[in-house]
């Protein structure tokens, strides 16, 4: 889920070769380990400062489950060993974004996420954002045992600012910030509309997006390159549609509206994009997308 950059990394084959410093290389968009590293830093800092996780061991279980299954399934399906950065991010996303006092939901959620990548595929690509699908499934099927991100990072402004700086930097480096921005503007606009419709104050309606945990969704989940459409205009449109769907779900009282909205809109948009591209550029090979 928090997978920005893992596939947005495209080889700069046409660029002239030049010597770059290690720091520049480290912060380049070619470094696919940059997003996982930043997410890990956010996780560790959040745990140290706020104790946002139930425990490190639960998150470790989610990560381990995710990586082991990705290794096994990649061998079975693709026939080669995968780069585990993607599985690591799926695991850590599950570790951050679901909340359960028990251990097994973390393993189950990671297993669902990774398995979905290899089962629900069309024309060589998985359609659902794996972690998003798994979390939505958990929240619908076994809400007694699982909750999603909400208030675990408190209500202070500083974590919000830190996540914004890190998130904006990463999404800007991987050329996805326009998605975040579109979603943000759409959410605020829809908040005003909801306020008019339901009669609650605008501040109450816009409140969710001011919580730091919500930032993880807008920076790292809806920007997932594997499960977003190709064109910049299309990406902005999809972000807008996710926000629109979220508004509808919020009006219907769905607490976990952002997850469900992305689960509904994301695969439909991606399927249309794949279909349109296959019609117009029939000769272009399609990536396996199992990383």
């Amino acid at each position, binding site marked *: 889920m928090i997978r920005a950059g893992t596939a947005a990394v495209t080889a700069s084959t046409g660029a002239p070769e030049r010597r770059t410093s290690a720091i520049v290389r480290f912060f380049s968009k070619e470094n696919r380990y940059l997003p996982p590293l930043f997410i890990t830093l956010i996780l560790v800092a959040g745990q140290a400062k706020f*104790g946002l996780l139930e425990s490190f061991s639960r998150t470790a279980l989610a990560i381990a489950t995710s990586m082991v299954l990705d290794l096994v399934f990649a061998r079975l399906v693709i026939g080669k060993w995968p780069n585990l950065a993607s599985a690591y991010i799926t695991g850590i996303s599950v570790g951050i974004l679901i909340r359960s006092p028990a251990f097994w939901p973390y393993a189950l959620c990671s297993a669902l996420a990774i398995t979905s990548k290899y089962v629900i595929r069309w024309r060589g690509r998985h359609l659902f954002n794996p972690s998003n699908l798994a979390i939505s499934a958990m929240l619908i*099927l076994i809400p007694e045992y699982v909750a999603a991100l909400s208030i675990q990072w408190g209500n202070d402004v500083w974590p919000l600012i830190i996540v914004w700086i890190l998130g904006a930097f990463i999404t800007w480096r991987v050329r996805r910030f326009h998605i975040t921005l579109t979603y943000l503007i759409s959410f605020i606009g829809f908040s005003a509309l909801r306020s008019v419709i339901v009669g609650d104050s605008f501040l109450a309606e816009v409140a969710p997006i001011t919580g730091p945990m919500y930032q993880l969704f807008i920076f790292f989940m809806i920007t997932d390159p594997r499960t977003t459409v190709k064109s910049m205009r299309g990406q902005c449109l999809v972000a807008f549609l996710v926000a629109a769907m979220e508004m509808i779900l919020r009006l219907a009282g*769905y607490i976990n509206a952002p997850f469900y909205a992305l689960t509904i809109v994301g695969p439909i948009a991606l399927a249309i994009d794949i279909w349109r591209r296959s019609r117009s550029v029939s000769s272009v090979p399609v990536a396996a997308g199992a990383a």
Partner: protein
Amino acid sequence: MEQVVRPSRTVQIGLAIFFIGLLAAPVVYKRHQRAEASASAKMSKTQALSRYGFYLQESSKASGIEFVHQAPTLDVKLSHIMNLVASMGAAVSVVDFDRDGWEDIYAVNSKPGSRNALYRNLGNGTFRDVAPEVGLADVNLPGTGVSTGAVWGDYDNDGYEDVLIYKWGKPELYHNDGGKHFTRVTEQAGLPGWLNANTALWFDYDNDGKLDLFIGGYYPEYLDLWHLKTTKMMPNSFEYADNGGRKYLFHNLGNGRFEEVSAKLGINSRRWSLAAVAADLRGTGYPDLFIANDYGVSELYLNEGGKRFREAGKEAGVGFSPKSGMTASVGDVLNRGQFDVYVSNISEEGVLVQGNNLWMPKSGTPTKTIRFDNMANTFGVELGGWSFGAQFADLNNDGFLDLYVANGNVSLDKGRSYWYDYSKIAGGNQAIISDAANWPPLDGRSLSGYQHKRVWINDGEGRFQEVAQMVGVKDVYDGRSVAMADFENRGALDVVVANQRGPLLLYKNTVAPGRHWIEFQLQGQRSNRSAIGAEVRVFWAGQEQLQQVSGGSGFCSQNERRLHFGLGKASSVDRVEIRWPSGTKQTLVNPAVDEIHNVREPL
């Protein structure tokens, strides 16, 4: 570009089956559990007695108790969320105020002008409200705030238990005049003029033989909830709030006066406290103080020789993950001879699954730096609901402490929930959440309402089984305060429950025959007369269980001071070791079972 390798059909089918299995397994398991629970809920009293060893019969009306709690009505600026901000106040405590040997019940009320009730136990299974006669009824007069709880302790060691009534408003201390009347002594005692408290307890923190007093604030003490100057009075965070009420520690000077020493002794906190319990968690001889806070982490104040308190929640492991602490109770869950601490929190399906905490000391941790593990999940006492009061008690006299948990927050319109709006505001920035004006109107909706209670019976081997429906606890009122007492002096612990905007319930306990018990009524001489803080260890049939006389525990409640031990089928006790707060140790060898023992501290 990756080379696409088409997996074999077998692999594809296998993966699909695995995926479907992952989705289906928890659903199937859940359905199986529900079917099992549904079948068990139809169990008869006879079957429950046979299987679980006890049955609880709600019998308040038959016992002459017809008390219905009335909730506070606060400033009109809060009217859109009144049932939410005024969702506490129902509380109950147990005392033998007239020393007739029968435990009585004090229930508080919270509407301005409403009356508290003191139900005197007539010794024949019935009670009579004597609060107006003894001067403990009209304590919620307009302008003085409303009661949120009461704790009993003999602060002047005259043999009769006095009462502190804590409030959202002016706290009141009443002196017990020989069990016949109560005299208001608030001003002489030096208590503050106004606070907004939801917890208090008596304990002798320096073991000087005089009971001291702790009071924990919830709303800040500078707020008059009936005359608000601002609506910015809500917590500034759902999990890290630090704008709640201050804490008070009153040292008993021995002349009917108290000195406030919290800051001097190291207690500085503005977390939103809802529960506190004092117990010697480390075997130092001095009671430590455990505070469960709403909107934040719990705090553990280690008592350093009665001279100072040191907050060690984080290093002890109990003060790291912020939750919504609403009860604090101690019990020796595994008969290990040491106290475990139970803290209730919120669990709401798919929204907020905090889980309750069962903090058990790690074995072998040094006295100075005790560390706890949360064993609630392992032991099966984690998911309660919106849990408030909880108490340990051996309800079936099998020799292991069971657990009763009251659930349910706001029960209004059954079909409409406030949870969506609650979660919307709870995650917002502190400038938004802390202003009540930003909170969406409750509009008659429920918030975790109509919840079943939890009665978990302890198998003594690390697992609890939930049996509430089977043993007769079927009410769905908004449970708050739970207290335990043997009201009929027959060796069975009854349960009294105060419900917000609901009736005071008395669950009379029937225990299956053939199970033995022993009880101890302690009286301090060098120690405080109520013997609060005294520890009793009972050794029988290879078991050792530790209990203490408590000056307040759970949520706004206090159990009887008498200690009750179930013994199972054992018909004898090897010995009983008593450690009095003064440090005096006393041993009783082979005391008779199935009896109440009155024990006076040796001089």
